[in-house]
């Protein structure tokens, strides 16, 4: 059940109305049932995986408190890591590893062939396994008390607004909110609906319209001129941003109506002045997850410079691989890691890490520079193979300017993209719902009208599922 379908537009009000009608003590049952129903709409069988992840996370937490000696706790944590990462490996990486091993066997003429698995990647598996893992690691280190109520724990793992593509929430932040008794408030309703409206606009009007154009160019790049390729690359930057940002905003809005505040996953990342800041503003819940559960345990920046650089590279490479089982994701992550390190070195050597006033000329120039770098690196993220990415770069820099296929971009796509960019610039360090709340009623309703119009009349009509569902 996608957020941008009629099914969800019916599902959400039914859940919300029932949520506020029933007594507080039954609400977790409703939300858990709704979340499982939501997940089963993709494939019923994969619910089994969430249940395994939930039970392992729950039991290991409870048992860690029951057997607090270091050895038992460590064993339980290892068991938990094995099950959750094992699920992730099996469903996400098995075929990738097997394919590469088979290639290696071919080269070495070993005469072995690992059979490949034929199944679809369970939606959201990377998200809910990471959520379960963060809880278990926190319990292991004593930062979090084990949850005794299986129902609430199951709800924490599967809460439907953020189940399939985040934000990846921490137990300490989400669980108390799920347990709290929320009253229906007008402010939560209006703020939630504002976020959903904005999320639908950026997903359906921006991302889905750009997706068709980007897909066309990436399907036959040789048919297009360098300028068209450049257009496609830039459009992909906006497509992936609006696709994932749109999902996150709808998720936050949906939870907000029920009084649950999910963390912000994006803060105008394309206005970041450097790569480090970009990662503080892009997919924040994943960045902070890697920071807390990988970067810090590796020593963070409290180590020698060389070691720090290696830590950074590890984090980015792992982050790349988290996104997908393909060498292109690994290269994508590694490139970000290398650039992050280089930028830090250059900035500290030349003392360039100054604060710049928002919207100042320096801010704008640095943002354009960061956007340019990120846009080029996205080519690896979008390409199906390393060869495809290299071909895109070759065509970009050595194209003849001739086209075999005319690239037609409807005027309304440019119009709405401009509206989105302007809105995003205005939203620097602000959130759409609170920004909108400060606008007088008439202006607010004009904005609502414009967004409703764009969603109904100019939404992309092809079916492009959210990009991050595949991760």
């Amino acid at each position, binding site marked *: 059940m*996608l957020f*941008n*379908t*009629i099914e969800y*537009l019916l599902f959400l009000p039914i859940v919300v109305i029932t949520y506020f009608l029933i007594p507080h003590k039954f609400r977790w049952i409703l939300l858990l049932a709704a979340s499982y129903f939501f997940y089963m709409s993709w494939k019923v069988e994969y619910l089994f995986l969430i249940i395994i992840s939930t039970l392992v996370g729950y039991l290991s937490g409870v048992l860690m408190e029951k057997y607090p000696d270091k050895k038992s706790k460590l064993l339980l944590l290892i068991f938990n890591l094995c099950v959750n990462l094992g699920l992730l490996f099996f469903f996400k990486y098995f075929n990738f590893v097997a394919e590469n091993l088979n290639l290696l066997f071919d080269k070495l003429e070993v005469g072995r062939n690992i059979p490949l698995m034929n199944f*679809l990647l369970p939606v959201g598996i990377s998200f809910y396994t990471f959520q379960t893992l963060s809880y278990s690691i926190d319990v292991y280190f004593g930062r979090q008390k084990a949850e005794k109520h299986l129902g609430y724990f199951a709800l924490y793992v599967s809460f439907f607004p953020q189940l399939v593509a985040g934000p990846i929430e921490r137990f300490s932040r989400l669980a108390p909110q799920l347990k709290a008794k929320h009253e229906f408030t*007008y402010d939560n*309703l*209006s703020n939630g609906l504002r976020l959903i409206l904005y999320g639908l606009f950026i997903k*359906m009007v921006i991302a889905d319209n750009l997706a068709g154009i980007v897909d066309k160019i990436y399907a036959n790049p040789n048919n297009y001129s360098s300028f068209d390729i450049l257009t496609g690359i830039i459009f992909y930057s906006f497509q992936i941003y609006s696709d994932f940002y749109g999902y996150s905003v709808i998720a936050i809005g949906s939870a907000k109506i029920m009084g649950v505040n999910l963390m912000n996953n994006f803060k105008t990342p394309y206005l970041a002045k450097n790569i480090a800041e970009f990662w503080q503003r892009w997919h924040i819940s994943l960045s902070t997850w890697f920071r807390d559960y990988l970067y810090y345990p590796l020593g963070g920046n409290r180590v020698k410079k060389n070691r720090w650089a290696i830590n950074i590279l590890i984090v980015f490479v792992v982050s790349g691989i988290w996104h997908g089982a393909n060498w292109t994701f690994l290269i994508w992550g590694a490139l970000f890691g290398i650039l992050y390190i280089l930028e830090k070195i250059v900035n500290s050597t030349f003392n360039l890490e100054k604060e710049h006033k928002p919207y100042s000329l320096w801010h704008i120039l640095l943002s354009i520079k960061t956007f340019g770098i990120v846009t080029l690196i996205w080519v690896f993220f979008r390409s199906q193979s390393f060869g495809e990415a290299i071909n895109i770069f070759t065509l970009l820099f050595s194209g003849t300017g001739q*086209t*075999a*296929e*005319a690239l037609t971009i409807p005027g309304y796509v440019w119009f709405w993209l401009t509206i989105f960019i302007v809105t995003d610039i205005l939203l620097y360090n602000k959130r759409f719902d609170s920004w909108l709340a400060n606008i007088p009623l008439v202006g607010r*309703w004009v904005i*609502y*009208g414009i967004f*409703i*119009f764009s*969603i*109904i*009349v100019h*939404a992309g*009509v092809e*079916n492009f599922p959210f990009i991050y569902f595949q991760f």
Partner: protein
Amino acid sequence: MCKKILFKIFLLSVTVVIISFIYNKWFYESDVQKHSDIINLVRDIPNDADIIYIGESSNISFRGDDIDKRPISAFVGDFFPKLNTYDITKPASHAGIYKILLANIPTDNQVKTIIVTLNLRSFNATWIYSNLETPLQKSLVLIKPYPPLFNRFLLSFKGYDIKSESEREQQYKKKWKSDKFKLPYEFQFKNVIEWDYWMANSGIKDSVGNIDYKQTELACHYIKTYGFQIDTTNNPRIEDFNKIIKLAKKRGWNLVFNLLAENTEKAKKLVGDDLIYMINENANILENYFQNRGVRVVNNLNAVEDEQFIDQDWTTEHYAEKGRKTVAKNVSEALKTWHNDFYVEADFSATYQTDFFNNCDNKNVIWGQMHTITTELAYSGKKSSRTGAGNDFSITLEYPLKVIPDSLKQNIAIELMLNQASSNHNAKLVMEAYGTDFRPYWIGLDLKNDIHEVNKWVKYNKNITIPDSIKQADLIKIYIFNPTREKIYIDDFRVVVENR
């Protein structure tokens, strides 16, 4: 709080009304042309129609060596020359699509009789859950009987039968498994999966006893296509046809269901009597079911012989000329029920034709590569054929040259209107010929030697002397070949075979 919410609901309603007005006035029609141009098939029907034939590709498919390549609907029209017969033809469509198209026929249209294609295969799981269903359903959303803005809302929020290829595959495979055969005699297979598995493993043997894999694959395909039994209570197609019956009653139309011919000869040869039993049983079920509901059903099931099926290695209802004429004749006999006074015996005796003309607008003129027809530009009427930028071949005359007496075919005169965006191309006028007794013939004449004007309609003439060596060609093809990215539009394409 309630007051506040009610006030906001009021504001929302006003907003929606304003958006609806703007959408209807300035956006709806262009959206319809972009996403639901299927409606033009209905809009093209004039108000003075007497008979409308609605069907899929079976109506318009032809074989290269057909002397008369016109569709079944045009042959039906030959039997009723004083009545206006039109067609609505949408490839891959079925009753679920017809019902919406028919509902869009304006109420002031004079049409008296509707002939609806009843395709047996459209009742099987592979067609019901076909990949083509998603784009077909999408193309209908904007023409549903709801307010335009609501239809656009349904389109934006995917409010139609939208499924991925793998989901569709799962659906029909599930159906293959769950539908158990119920025959009045002992049958060794429980369902189509078992039957198909058995055929794939046992195979069809050739004359020396080796497995003929091509024939085996075809036999398996026949099993998967025809190995089903229609359940009139649950098959969604039945419901679609029932809705058409209801609509016809409401609009006062005479209704004919044209049960198309299937290649039962091949089915018997490849698979055997069990499959034939199922095909006949299904045909009888449909015939009885709809006749009991007051519809005239024309049963063509076994009316077309194997040789007349164009696709010999797949299951389709694409007939060569004789097959199309047979179906048309049977349908016309049924139409006598209401139009007896207008019936004449059609003269199908013409053995050859020497003058061919295609203005891209006449639906009864069927040439090859008709998918290149576009409304982007036109010299006459509204349409032309676009070549280049992906369309290498223009509309193509295909004809069995051998049927024209030698004494009448010395020369071929070609005349067409042409519009090129630039002369940066190497497009050619091509004539090719094939035959059993000679090597394939090909001649290409560069257009840019004769045409220099751009963005302007220009007349192009050429005379080609017919070499003696190709006079007995089974098939000649004449077309513009443009493999470049430059677009060239062709209109009013005339080919005359002459004796000078």
